[in-house]
């Protein structure tokens, strides 16, 4: 940059306005009344407003967990990739590690062997964290609801903020779901809580019954287990 040009940054407001008006004409443009400014307003209540600011930031820059389970993950990949490009909405950087992610899209059927693992992955994500359930399988078990091995929906294991129905949902639907989630986060709405989900518990804490007795010599007292009561499943 040559020395006789103006310096690129100005610290006083009137210079800024001056250059802006020089560029765009006087009094026409309010682009600088940004969302940020709307969020802050002119009110002095920093604490609540700061929360609001943080919510807005959270909603606008979401790191997704790169997490594929079943068929829906193919459409999820398409949502991330060219054409649908979820990144346009500030939500498209898949992270391979749950410790760096704040949104998990659950794309597929959850079976008994995988549910404890998924719970573990979810537990590893830092707070605050959000869950998008993708596809009918995460709602109810979908086409496999009657399977002997299929967990009847993601909500049996972790709380879900947004359900995107479909088998599989189109990428557009997933984009809509994610946008909805962003909107909710920005509005500071909290996620629902599942009622009596399957939990990881220590084997010794289970109520003794026939199955527990049978497995007593295979599982250690302090092993974490997940107990499926299929008869009570929806």
């Amino acid at each position, binding site marked *: 940059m040559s020395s006789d040009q103006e310096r690129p940054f100005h610290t006083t407001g009137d210079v800024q306005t001056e250059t802006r008006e020089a560029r765009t004409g006087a009094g026409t443009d309010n682009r600088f009344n940004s969302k940020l400014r709307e969020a802050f307003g002119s009110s002095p209540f920093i604490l609540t407003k700061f929360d609001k600011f943080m919510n807005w930031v959270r909603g606008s820059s979401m790191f997704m967990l790169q997490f594929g389970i*079943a068929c829906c993950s193919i459409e999820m990949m398409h949502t991330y990739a060219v054409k649908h490009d979820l990144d346009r909405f500030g939500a498209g950087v898949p992270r391979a590690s749950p410790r760096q992610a704040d949104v998990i899209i659950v794309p597929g059927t959850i079976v008994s*062997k995988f549910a404890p693992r998924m719970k573990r992955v979810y537990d590893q994500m830092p707070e605050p964290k959000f869950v998008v359930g993708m596809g009918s399988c995460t709602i109810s078990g979908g086409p496999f609801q009657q399977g002997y091995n299929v967990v009847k929906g993601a909500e049996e294991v972790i709380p879900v903020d947004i359900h995107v129905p479909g088998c599989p949902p189109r990428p557009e639907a997933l984009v809509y779901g994610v946008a909805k989630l962003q909107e909710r986060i920005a509005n500071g709405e909290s996620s629902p809580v599942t009622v009596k989900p399957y939990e990881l518990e220590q084997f010794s804490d289970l109520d003794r*019954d026939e*199955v527990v007795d049978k497995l007593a010599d295979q599982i250690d007292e302090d092993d974490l287990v997940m107990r499926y009561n299929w008869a009570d499943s929806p």
Partner: protein
Amino acid sequence: MSKGESLPETTEPTTADDVAALIGDDLLDREEHVNAPGFVIRPDSVQDVLFRLRDEAGYDHLSCVSAQEYEDRYESIYHLKKFDDPTDEVSVVVPAAKDDPVSESAEPVFRTADWHEREAYDLVGIEYDDHPDLRRILLPETWQGHPLGLDYDQDRPQIVPLREHANPLQEDHEDDDGDTMFLNIGPHHPATHGVLHLETVLDGEQVIDVESDIGYLHRCEEQMAQQGTYRYQIMPYPDRWDYISAGLLNEYAYARAAEDLADIDVPEYAQVIRTMGAEMCRIASHMLAVGTFALDVYGDFTAIFMYAIRDREKMQDLLEDLTGQRLMFNYFRLGGVVWDLPEPREEFFEKVRDFLDELPEALEEYHDLISTNEILQVRTVGTGVLPPDVAKSYGATGPVARGSGIDYDLRRDDPYGYYDELDWDVCVEDGCDNYSRLLVRLREVEESAKIIEQCIDLLEDWPEDERTIQSNVPRTLRPEDDKEIYRAVEGAKGELGIYMRADGTDKPARFKIRSPCFSNLQTLPEMSNGEYVPDLIAALGSLDIVLGEVDR
């Protein structure tokens, strides 16, 4: 194209009676399956009989093991074929007693029997004598009961532990400064293409042993099919076995098996549409295979992955025009397809032609970016080697087998649909390494394009009054009691077979899926033991597994 030579000095039996003579005293009874003669043999001489059939009669491909429970007995069926001629089949039926279901394992004869028998043990409950490692394979080890057995109670509670996958080395290696270590890859890991868990033992950076732990996506596909009626309720499920856009190929497998079981004809016009749709799916599926393979090797979401997705998007658009869905097509019906080509037909043909016109250029890009790329070549040429005899013993099929120089493609060798009327080639590479498998896929895309083009030509000129899309099929199908069939088609990943047994009702009594990925994945230790970890990842990528089909 020349087929593998058969050994000149053996006089292979040609008729079922010859085979029966070969089995000799071990033969208990004979059966007739729709696809092949069945031989009931003594449960304690399985190895003997299979050795003889393999070495003296040339049945070198154990395609599938179907196990089931009857009211009065258990039964395992070994579906044998020849790699040289897959239409030459025999079924070896091994009964086992109801109160103590034990039969001899076939693992010493065919390595692939290892996993197939573990699955039979897991789901049906038959035990195999002399099996090296008879454990559950799909369900958690603490599962109670065998879900495809007759008296399984689905409502009984189950307990599944979350074990830290135990490190078998920890104790003896904790203090010494050896280089041996134990590494868990998955079940949630970007390189495993889904929910696969690899238990790897390393010496420094070299893989000493790798064991695949599968079952994280076992969603009871066989049970679902057994609960559905032949006519309509089963067809949606095949889409979800191999879900990488290979839906129509899977539907083809079910359609073919069920049509042969119930003697249904398919109008020629519908066959052309089916063939075209199936090849479209193959292209879409191979695109993703190539894209994710590059992703595995380069380790980042680079251009090649995006290119692959771009081309897949185009293909999905075409498939959506044809079927109405992007991924789960549900387009085939027994006896045909559900509807005709979209109107206006000219527009559809033009779109397909546009895609085909652009394809050579796109493939050129792929070759620039992948196959001629030095980095990729260094990583893939000569790594993940799978010799042909090992591949055969594991029952590997599809691009994995063809990359090992095995000239085996059911579209040509066991023709169905319209394939034998068209002009195309089977792609075989004999490098046996990761690179060959990649090349086979890229070349197969070209061949599929050729097939689609010919189908389009045919469809364009098809006289308007002969466009029958479905034959007359009764509303309810009830194939005769005890009719059994095993039929396979060439899916995107290899031989996708279905075994069905009818019991006179409108639902199959047993429905067994022979998944190509299941067999192909079994070869992973052979390819990666002794190699470096990155080569293990490359080998896994080149196998192109999809967990929905491995676990079913």
